């Protein structure tokens, strides 16, 4: 991978026509690599990896942006083609892929493209067989490469420095921005990638961008379990939300954070809940404008989130909390918030507020993401994230221990919880020998990094060496594929 910058220059003349598909369990991310490089302004498609159906219209499948924009989400029955991150229902997956290929952003014919598909590590042979059949025999893709999202994300993160090297002359100019990660990150050959996805969390050590299969560790806790657990708690204590998975997922993303001192927080939150309390206004589906709801602002306090002022005193993650709400809210939602604020101030009508369904959350905010570090809290008999990292590192060669601990990379949607990095640092410090340095890098695009990395990888001059072409598949069958994508 050291020849990355030079090889991309070569590739500029002849693009590899490759479709990059990051097949996540929550969202599916797709882009064609040559389109992305020629026109970076409209680079990718991101749609939910789900198929929706309604009671009224049982025949029609609702896919993609129709699913997000569907006026009444409570009517929808959604199904996903994946189980534990692996594709198992190909009839559904094919419908979603068809939808992607037809979309205006891509408009591609599979026969003319190669495919770069992401897949969690240790896919079983029986899971892969139908995949080869669909990719080669039904879509007739030219070639296939299977990659772990973590490895691709790492390629993207490393490439941020290479771009800067290309622009070395501009370093003197005032607009120069230093690379986002420290120099030791770019120089070290060893990286420990923590991919905190929707279906599970993987700890994958890498040596020179190659994953070390024998040291991979998995925790069966991901965004999905957190959302389902959150849903279960809320349904028991407050409102019945069992069929509102997507809504609960957005509420989780906006409200939850990882506590840096869990026991202290849970004790103090019982004594004085006001400093932890957040009131969330649930959406009213009759009013089409607002579909995700919003955090209620206290009109008296001048529009501050009620808990924020106090939270600063107890936790140090107020800044990140703000960052999270900023990044997750779309512009529309922000406008909605502002609108609603103005409404309450202008009309000053308590009636309107009473009509809204309020969800008051206290300890749920930090007990839910806590499962990542303590799966035993709900009876999952596995070690937490910090323990999994230590187990994984101990399986590698002793010479790699120091560089692995000093290059931990956080990736995936669930790593966006505020306080994640700080908590992991604290937990690891307790378990790792004091002479080892621990430094954690948070990926800047935790969700899209594998897609960008895939695009970069597919433009390598020797990309074709890694792939299995359709011809090879026709001759040797899936045994060759299994050999190549270990």
């Amino acid at each position, binding site marked *: 991978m050291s020849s990355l910058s030079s090889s991309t220059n070569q590739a500029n003349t002849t693009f590899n026509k490759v479709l990059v598909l990051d097949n996540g369990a929550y969202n599916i991310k797709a882009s064609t690599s040559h389109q992305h490089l020629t026109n970076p302004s409209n680079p990718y498609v991101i749609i939910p990896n789900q198929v929706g159906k309604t009671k009224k219209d*049982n025949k029609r499948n609702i896919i993609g942006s129709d699913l997000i924009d569907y006026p009444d989400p409570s009517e929808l*029955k*959604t*199904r*996903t083609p*994946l*189980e*534990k991150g*692996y594709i*198992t*229902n*190909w*009839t559904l997956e094919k419908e979603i892929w068809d939808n992607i290929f037809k979309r205006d952003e891509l408009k591609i014919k599979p026969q003319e493209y190669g495919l770069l598909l992401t897949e969690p*590590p*240790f896919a*079983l*042979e029986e*899971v892969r067989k*139908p995949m080869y*059949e*669909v990719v080669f025999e039904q879509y007739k893709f030219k070639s296939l490469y299977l990659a772990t999202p973590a490895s691709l994300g790492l390629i993207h993160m490393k490439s941020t420095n290479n771009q800067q090297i290309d622009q070395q002359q501009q370093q003197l100019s005032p607009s120069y921005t230093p690379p986002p990660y420290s120099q030791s990150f770019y120089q070290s050959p060893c990286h420990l990638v923590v991919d905190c996805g929707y*279906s599970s969390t993987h*700890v994958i050590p890498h040596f020179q961008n190659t994953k070390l*299969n*024998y040291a*991979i*560790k*998995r*925790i*069966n806790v991901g965004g*999905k*379990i957190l959302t*389902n*657990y959150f849903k*279960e*708690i809320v349904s*028991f*204590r407050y409102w019945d939300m069992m*069929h509102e*998975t997507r809504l609960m997922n957005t509420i989780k993303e906006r409200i939850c954070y990882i506590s840096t001192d869990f026991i202290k927080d*849970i*004790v103090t*939150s*019982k004594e004085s809940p006001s400093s932890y309390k957040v009131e969330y206004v649930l959406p009213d589906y009759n009013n089409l404008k607002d579909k995700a709801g919003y955090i209620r602002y206290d009109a008296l306090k001048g529009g501050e989130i009620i808990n924020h002022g106090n939270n600063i005193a107890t936790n140090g993650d107020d800044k990140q909390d703000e960052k999270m709400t900023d990044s997750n809210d779309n512009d529309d939602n922000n406008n909605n918030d502002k609108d609603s604020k103005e409404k309450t101030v202008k009309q000053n009508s308590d009636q309107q507020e009473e009509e809204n369904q309020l969800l008051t959350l206290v*300890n*749920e905010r930090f*007990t839910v993401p806590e499962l990542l570090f*303590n799966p*035993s*809290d*709900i*009876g*999952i*008999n*596995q*070690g*937490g994230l910090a*323990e*999994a990292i230590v*187990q994984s590192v101990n399986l590698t060669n002793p010479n790699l221990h120091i560089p692995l601990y000093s290059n931990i990379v956080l990736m995936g949607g669930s790593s966006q919880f505020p306080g994640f990095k700080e908590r992991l640092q604290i937990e690891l410090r307790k378990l790792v020998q004091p002479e080892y340095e621990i430094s954690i890098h948070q990926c800047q695009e935790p969700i899209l990094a594998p897609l960008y990395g895939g695009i970069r990888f597919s433009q390598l001059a020797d990309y074709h060496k890694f792939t299995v072409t359709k011809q090879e598949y026709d001759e040797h069958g899936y045994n060759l594929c299994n050999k190549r994508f270990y």
Partner: protein
Amino acid sequence: MTDTATATATPITTPSKRKSELSKRFRINNEEDRRMLKEKIQNARIEALENDNEFQSIDPLADDDADDDYQDEEDDLVYSTPVNKRKRNREREKKRFEKKSLNISFRDVLEKSYLETYPENVPTYLTATSKPSPLPPRHFCSICGYLSTYTCKQCSSKYCSIKCFNNHVEYRCKRSLY
């Protein structure tokens, strides 16, 4: 009541006796069976939390097939010639076969691949799970979610106060199972 003196004289033996005995009111008196049942309930809950499809029917092929039949019937109404029907039947069978080969259930596949028989040094899906923590699990109130100190005698789930306990008895207690 006659031998109060002996009761005070041997305080160590009496509690140990009590510990091993289970009330006869329980449906399952065997301690081993109780533990098994408890584990079973726990596993069912974890599986429900890990469930990918909340609306999934038990047989993953069932509702897709139903859809197709419906579609076929409608097609039949429009053009119904015997030749076409035969052709369509063949196509339908082909489709169904394709579905069976393309749609799999992860649990079945995991069972069939017999990963337990692999040698220890080969990393597989099963060996990749992180090993359980050496620390004992923490206990939270099953009602309000705060730290709990008490255990329900009937179903051994946790609670933190009388208020939560009353709630628990009313809605959550699974004593009928034991």
